[in-house]
């Protein structure tokens, strides 16, 4: 049934699978106890400093695990994993924390994970259920609520990590107004420049995903991080190979059809396009004409519901 990979092409699936494999393989490798290296990530060393300052001032540490559009997703999970570390440091110093959640899924997960952190530290009595709060699941009501909290509680440190959109600057400037140390990171690249402008420390791009590995040094996370590096190297190598292939294609191959928007020219031989390179064609196959497959048919009284004709 190989021809059924028509839409994506078998090579694209293979390529993706290789990346998946390199992540899983490195996780397995790290679990077997091989010690592995991670480079320094500047923003993360600031966590202890920020919590320490909050302790001195006796003001809370505010953490915002970002928006996630519907329910909880991998980005907010990663943010909560980082906050688990922050909460652990805060618990040891008995510094008050405030986790502001955007939706119920995040709320439930944070509630559980932060509670566990306090329990593991043997400080369950210090845990206040209301330190993890649901604010609102409307983006700007959330922004208004969180910035109100930051201003009123005069937070000494603020962590904004996860999926942030336009509210990033509202939160960051509110925290700046009360003089809080801010460590921020957005998985949305478009928000990073605003965090750079307004915050003290910013994690860029997938430093966010590297953070939990860097902080906790759990073998699984470190292994995964190395697998991710393999993936990035694979992409770089593929791009380079494709560059060679594409360059080769435009220099040597010819094509007879040329669809350049409206300028359709057929029959005259032309230089091939870069997309005609071997690797390019393997990753994104040329669309074929529609095929028909003969199959036995359902009788009309067995028609699946969605296909009754429209109109009245």
């Amino acid at each position, binding site marked *: 049934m190989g021809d059924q990979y028509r839409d*994506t092409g078998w090579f*694209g699936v293979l*390529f*993706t699978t290789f*990346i998946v494999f390199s992540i899983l393989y490195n996780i397995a490798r790290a679990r077997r106890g091989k010690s592995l*290296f991670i*480079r320094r*990530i500047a923003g993360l060393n600031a966590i202890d400093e920020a919590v320490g300052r909050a302790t001195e001032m006796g003001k809370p540490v505010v953490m915002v695990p970002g928006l996630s559009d519907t329910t*909880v997703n*991998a980005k907010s*999970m990663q943010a909560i994993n980082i906050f688990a570390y922050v909460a652990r440091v805060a618990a040891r110093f008995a510094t008050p924390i405030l986790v502001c959640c955007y939706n*119920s*899924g995040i709320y*439930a997960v944070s*509630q*559980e994970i932060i*509670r566990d952190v306090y329990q593991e530290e043997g400080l369950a009595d210090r845990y206040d259920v209301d330190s993890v709060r649901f*604010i609102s*699941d*409307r983006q*700007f009501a959330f922004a*208004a*609520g969180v*910035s*109100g909290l930051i*201003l009123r509680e005069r937070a000494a440190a603020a962590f904004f990590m996860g999926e942030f959109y*336009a509210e990033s600057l509202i939160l960051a400037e509110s925290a700046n107004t009360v003089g809080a140390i801010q460590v921020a990171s957005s998985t949305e*690249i*478009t928000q*990073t*420049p*605003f965090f750079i*402008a307004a915050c003290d420390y910013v994690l*860029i791009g997938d*430093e966010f995903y590297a953070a939990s590995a*860097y902080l906790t040094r759990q073998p699984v996370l470190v292994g995964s*991080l*190395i697998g991710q*590096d393999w993936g*990035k190297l694979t992409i*770089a190598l593929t*791009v380079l190979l*494709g*560059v060679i292939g594409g*360059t080769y294609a*435009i*220099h040597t191959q010819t094509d007879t059809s*040329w669809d*350049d928007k409206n*300028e359709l*020219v057929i029959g*005259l031989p*032309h230089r091939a396009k870069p997309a005609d*390179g071997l690797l*390019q064609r393997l*990753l*994104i196959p040329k669309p074929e004409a529609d095929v028909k497959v003969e199959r036995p048919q359902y009788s009309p009284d067995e028609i699946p*519901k969605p296909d*009754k004709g429209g109109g*009245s």
Partner: protein
Amino acid sequence: MDYQLFKLTCGVVAILGLYTVLYRENKFYRFWEHVFLGLAAGYSMVFLWSETLKGGWWDKMVGTTAEHANGSGASMAYPFYAALLPIGLMGYTVFNKKYNWMSRVPIGIILGLYSGQQISAWQNRYVPNIVSSMKPVIPTTLEFTKPLTKGLSKEATAAINANLYPSQAITNIIFLVTLLSVLSYFLFSFDVKSKIIHRMSLNGRWLLMIGFGAIFGSTVMMRFTLLIDRMYFIWIEWFKQGILHR
């Protein structure tokens, strides 16, 4: 005061109330902040049923009769959706110290469904990006820039378009260097001993700043537009058209 003007006035008062926080946190802002949070929570509760559960769950579970569906044909009911109710409610055990683990079951299902999609999502999103990054780098002609094609025949235009000119090749090389430098900046597990890689990842940081600068520049456009829109609401829709009737 007519209804439209009353409604506009409500909006203007609320907006100005929120704006007062720009000066400092105050009682007026606090009032409007809580109104806002209350309305948001109320609205979530309304659309919980009206926009999601009613059509997405209830109607599928109970089906429609011919009378209810206005002649468009009855549809069958799928009663087994009812089993989702107890499973969904398991989430509420989170407040119980003993059974809070159970809240992880519905969340586990959601996270599972989310994470299962990541592989295909990755391929759909990034493979076309990888392919379009494979830009040719050796020009096919020595003419530096692309000549104008206006007024030429289709064949001649196509032949010109098919060439790679040195100016484009240089752009493509810069593109590749940027891409690879940025990628190398985000390698975490390599002890950078090679000078070339070290240099590249430093370049990567500078090139990132160009990218961020460009993002900042184009984002500012939107942010200001939204402010202008509010000013339009206040000055034109409310003050000029509503109060002054111009």
